[in-house]
């Protein structure tokens, strides 16, 4: 199938090659603060659960809180000899930050033609072409800085014995997570070398230098994890069963109960409850034979949904299409057990059980017969921050479950055979972050909407991760992020007004500020690990315009609300003081007066500022006018020759159908799917009618005669309507 470079775990390639010439160069200027570090400057103590680690590693799984916790806590009990409770430490090598980021050698030992070679670090020579990684604001530059800064966690060895497990994908993944959690810095780069080795060992497909598919990778990892965890759990279970019951520890009991729980669910194999609990949903496909009208049902589990795309649609509508009726005819006839033989049939898929984490794979890669190869679809597909599923079965539990978008895997590139993956992930309390190889950068919420597929640059959302949430949570979050939003929006307004430099030229300025404050130790071969934590408290750099949550210094100019509040509280405190001590009151009054004075001063200042701005504006006018006049003249000339400035998007054939209409994840066939009996269908129908009954029994307001009458008439007949809701 598809294969693209899976540059999934960052850094490994460049690390391997450049490790040799480790600490030769020392004239590298001290790295400046990245936006991320600025953001983390006033973060509190490092948390034990790893939710505040921002390593150069694009891994949506790590930020799936539930998944992370479970991975960290599994297996519940290490072999008996390990003292219970203390986690085995991961064998992590911390490598010196790479002071020569240039020597990148590809798989064949060939030098990458795109990479400029001469390792003249530091300031580019005049006349020489500027290397991409030396230009501030290029991703290359930022990645290099990340490598320079370190720490670089390298996972070359496994600590499998401590887990009592064979070395496998799961242990590899767990090591990564453990390393991150145990690291005493918040930022850095992690090289998942060993993980990739294990993964390649187990998956032949990935044993080459071809570019791989992120979605496939995700599926394989999850499946491997399930398989690994499963076998271990069973082994542990057996092991424990042999031992006496009183030897059971609490943690093991929970593990066993988890196993028991999944058995009760009856959905899948035992022991892997937590993976399934998080990612697994259940699909029902109903097939109705058009000859005998018999409907048969089949349930299938899924870890993600692969949905076909059409131009100018939303994820919502793509999901609806996924559940739309499908005719099985001609070559694709259905074997009906009732009539015995291939018959034409109607088939539709609906979601019977919604997963906690809903992974949506947008099928941007389509096989075209004309070229007999995969093509990338650049359809504009919009995705909302929140989502509910319309295509649930009538008996589905909590059909109105609210999901929120928390991670987007983005594919950059023009075709299906190569490209680059990055991800944008919403962290628990640090907002949205962009993970691009070694680079981690905070971005604002609107940034997430840049990957609908129609923007230049060929970056499109490829896998969307939605997680279960509640309405109240969403509202609370929205209220909290409001101020941030205001700041960003006003910042944008600033940019639009031209008060700002473009993003690119901020670096030089901030470097001037940051350089003297940086301790020189970052140039040492083995730097202290606590970069982020011990970074001197820099005052804000004058050109800090990259979205960063408001720091006290960086109060946005807009929120006038705040000011009124502070004034008010001042007044209140004043009143209190009056009641207590007169002396204090005096002092306070004085302070208040001062405050007022300051405020007035500020106001006056801002007025004068505005006046000044107007003056300078006027000064600029003439210049601008002349320029525009010139341009106008030019434009007029051009106008005669040119027409139609607005060509339509002529992207790959719109509306064409995909090769395989539906795929239910890679689990299909592998995982057990099962037939539900007719009785369960009956049961579900009962459930449906029961739910219909509820609106009719609803009480009505005793007063207000007219609305009362209307209301009375509202309250039934939904059931009928409902059956036609999703034709």
């Amino acid at each position: 199938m598809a294969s693209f470079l899976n540059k999934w775990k960052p850094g490994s390639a460049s690390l391997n090659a450049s490790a040799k010439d480790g600490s030769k160069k020392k004239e590298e200027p001290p790295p400046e603060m990245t936006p991320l570090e600025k953001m983390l400057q006033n973060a509190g103590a490092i948390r034990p659960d790893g939710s505040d680690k921002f390593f150069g590693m694009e891994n949506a799984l790590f930020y799936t809180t539930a998944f992370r916790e479970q991975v960290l806590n599994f297996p519940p009990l290490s072999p008996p000899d390990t003292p219970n409770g203390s986690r085995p430490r991961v064998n992590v090598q911390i490598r010196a930050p790479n002071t020569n980021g240039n020597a990148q050698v590809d798989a064949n030992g060939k030098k990458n033609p795109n990479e400029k070679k001469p390792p003249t670090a530091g300031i580019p020579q005049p006349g020489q072409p500027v290397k991409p990684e030396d230009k501030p604001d290029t991703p290359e530059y930022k990645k290099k800085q990340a490598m320079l800064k370190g720490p670089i966690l390298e996972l070359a060895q496994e600590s499998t014995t401590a887990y009592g497990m064979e070395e496998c994908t799961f242990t590899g993944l767990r090591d990564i997570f453990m390393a991150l959690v145990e690291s005493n810095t918040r930022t850095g780069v992690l090289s998942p070398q060993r993980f990739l080795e294990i993964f390649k060992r187990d998956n032949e497909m990935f044993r080459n230098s071809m570019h791989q598919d992120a979605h496939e990778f995700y599926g394989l990892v999850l499946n491997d994890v399930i398989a690994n965890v499963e076998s271990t759990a069973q082994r542990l279970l057996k092991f424990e069963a042999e031992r006496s019951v009183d030897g059971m520890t609490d943690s093991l009991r929970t593990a066993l109960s988890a196993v028991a729980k999944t058995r009760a669910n009856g959905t899948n194999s035992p022991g892997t409850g937590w993976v399934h609990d998080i990612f697994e949903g259940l699909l029902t496909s109903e097939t109705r034979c058009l000859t005998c009208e018999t409907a048969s049902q089949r349930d299938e589990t899924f870890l993600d949904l692969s949905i076909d795309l059409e131009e100018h649609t939303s994820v919502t509508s793509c999901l609806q299409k996924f559940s739309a009726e499908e005719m099985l005819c001609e070559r694709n006839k259905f074997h009906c057990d009732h009539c015995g033989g291939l018959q034409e049939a109607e088939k539709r898929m609906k979601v019977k059980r919604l997963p906690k984490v809903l992974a949506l794979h947008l099928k941007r890669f389509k096989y075209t017969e004309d070229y007999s190869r995969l093509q990338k679809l650049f359809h504009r597909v919009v995705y909302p921050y929140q989502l509910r599923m319309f295509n649930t079965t009538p008996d589905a539990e909590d059909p109105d479950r609210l999901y929120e978008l928390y991670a987007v895997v983005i594919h950059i590139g023009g075709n299906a055979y190569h490209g680059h993956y990055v991800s944008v992930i919403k962290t628990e309390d640090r907002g949205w972050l962009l993970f691009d190889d070694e680079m981690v950068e905070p971005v604002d919420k609107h940034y997430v909407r840049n990957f609908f597929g129609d923007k230049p640059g060929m970056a499109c959302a490829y896998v969307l991760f939605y997680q279960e949430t509640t309405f109240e949570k969403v509202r609370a979050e929205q209220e909290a992020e409001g101020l941030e939003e205001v700041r960003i929006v006003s910042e944008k307004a600033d940019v639009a007004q031209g008060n700002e430099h473009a993003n690119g030229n901020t670096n030089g300025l901030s470097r001037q500020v940051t350089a003297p404050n940086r301790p020189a130790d970052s140039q040492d071969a083995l730097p202290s690990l606590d970069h982020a934590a011990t970074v001197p408290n820099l005052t804000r750099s004058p050109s800090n315009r990259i979205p960063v949550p408001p720091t006290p210094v960086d109060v946005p100019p807009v929120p006038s609300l705040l000011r009124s509040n502070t004034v008010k509280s001042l007044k209140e405190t004043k009143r209190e003081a009056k009641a207590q001590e007169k002396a204090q009151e005096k002092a306070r009054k004085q302070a208040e007066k001062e405050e007022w004075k300051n405020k007035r001063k500020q106001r006056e200042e801002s007025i004068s500022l505005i006046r000044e701005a107007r003056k300078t504006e006027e000064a600029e006018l003439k210049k601008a006018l002349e320029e525009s006049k010139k341009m106008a003249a030019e434009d007029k000339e051009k106008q005669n020759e040119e027409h139609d400035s607005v060509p339509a998007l002529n992207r790959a054939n719109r509306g064409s159908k995909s090769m395989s209409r539906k795929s239910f994840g890679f689990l299909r066939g592998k995982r057990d799917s099962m037939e539900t009996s007719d009785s369960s269908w009956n049961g579900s129908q009962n459930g449906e009618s029961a739910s219909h009954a509820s609106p009719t029994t609803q009480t009505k307001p005793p007063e207000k005669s007219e609305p009362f009458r209307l209301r009375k008439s509202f309250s039934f007949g939904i059931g009928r309507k409902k059956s036609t809701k999703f034709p």
Partner: protein
Amino acid sequence: MFVLPPPPRYPTQAAYNAAVAAGHVAPMIETNNILSTPEDQFLVGEGTYVLKEDLLLATPPPHPSEAPVINPNPLATNPQPATVGTKVSLLSLESRRPPPAFYRLAATAALPGSIAEHPNEWRLSNDAKLSSDGEGRGTSVSDVGGPNSATAVSAPAFGDGNALLAPERFKDPNKRRKPKNNMTKSNSSFISRVIINEAFSKKMADRSNDGVFAFANINRAFQWLDFSSPTKADYLTKILFTKAHCLSHDVNLITKSLSHLDIIMGFSTGEIIWWEAMSQRYTRLNKNGVINKTPVSQIRWIPGAENLFLAAHMDGSLVVYDKEKEDAIFNPEEEETQPNGESTPPNIKPSDKISILKSVHSKNQKTNPVAIWKLSNQRINAFNFSPDNRHLAVVSEDGTMRIIDYLKEELLGLYNAYYGGFTCVCWSPDGKYVLTGGQDDLISIWYPQETTLIARCQGHQSWVTSVAFDPWRCDEKNYRFGSVGEDCRLCLWDFNSSHRQRGSVSSRVPTLHRAETQGTSPGRIRSGSTISVIDGDEEKISINYPVEPRSNVAILPPVLTKIADKDPLSWITFTEQSIMTSCKTGHIRTWSRPSDSLTQTNSETNTPDVM
């Protein structure tokens, strides 16, 4: 040991150039408008709508001095200026026959209200003149205005009772005050260029009075066109701004005359321009974002007002400006000294109340802003005045719709989207229903009188961008509305109030909330004439109505869905002869109504092609 290949490069400059060549990126040359007549049509119950013409308004290239730094990195985090699609306003100087639905407004008294007599009788007469069209955003069809439209709606004027806001009277309405600056001779850095048609005065002299003007904003350009002209592709005036994008505009229907057209425009920089089209003069308001720096997502004249208009800023505040007043830096603490002004409690729950940072009743009305209401911290996407000029429906990016009594500056109800944000809002011509379109691909029909959700309309395949009622096909019971969306589709919908009696469209409020909200349903607030009572109750009562589960709300299918353009659509309006749509790239399409709408075609109503 395996060594991965090096990280791939980002698309290079060459790739970008290729993209430009392929038309994915806007070229740098400015072009003329193009009128074409592609063939297309669609069939609805009442007949066949035929595509009459397609007017492509040229999207201006970026200003030369503002040529964007071409960043081949698709991950660049530079903030982009806010943009919207093409928005159009239609305006006719002569009053026309109002749509047939219009008389009902007086008869049915949309929302029951106690009408306080108020001293400024002359303003009442203005109200009567006011046309309460304006369904759909960025739209104002004025051909329903005029003294002969018997809209005996007499809502008090906004700001009534504050003598400071009473506008000066003009003895001669034809001698209105003009803005300060001459636009053609302007050397403001805000305005890049003003191009006036060479035959402007001839065109103005030749045109018939009942012709339709159109005003349209396309990114940094603003065009004034004459749709009744034989050469309608030629603009009368085209204004190019330097960097600010015009996001919304509105024409004042009270002050319009042969010699005077008041237009306000809101920009992505937060700034506002008051432009008088006939004299080509303008005034800048909120200059350099003195009052509010965030982009103006929608701007409208307050119904009945000559000078006051309302702008929705993206930080979640609604600001009332006076077109003739100077800006002043707004300091909320000044409000504190106002005995009259409502102060904002520090720990107010934003959802339950609007915080009035400055009341319209404030005694300090020498300068702008006239009033500021902070709704939330989320971006406001659109708002719409109710036809009876009493209420305001405001929708936000966080998926809330607020019904506000803007005369009393009071929040009456807060409704929530199924999921995602709301993008557009409009009132039915009789003021009974409110439509919202959103990022859940749905249009919701709300019935604010009873705080209920009547139905969710499912038919779009992407986000809805604009909704509008068709007043010519609405009567007492039946309603027709249209919507357009990012899916390039035009959908038409029918619903009738008898649906509710038949029970096929049903709705209910959860019992719990019903009990809670009895006291505050908007109808009751106003029937209970005194405000003080409500104030007392307000603490306990939630006016925040929760999301209805899907199983409780009827789903309404469209009577038609039609791919109406190649690009995502951004605007829809209905005129007597046609349906008009516009898209993001500047195509304005006019779909003529069935030539003889009385002859019903036998053919069936088009069913939605895909659901």
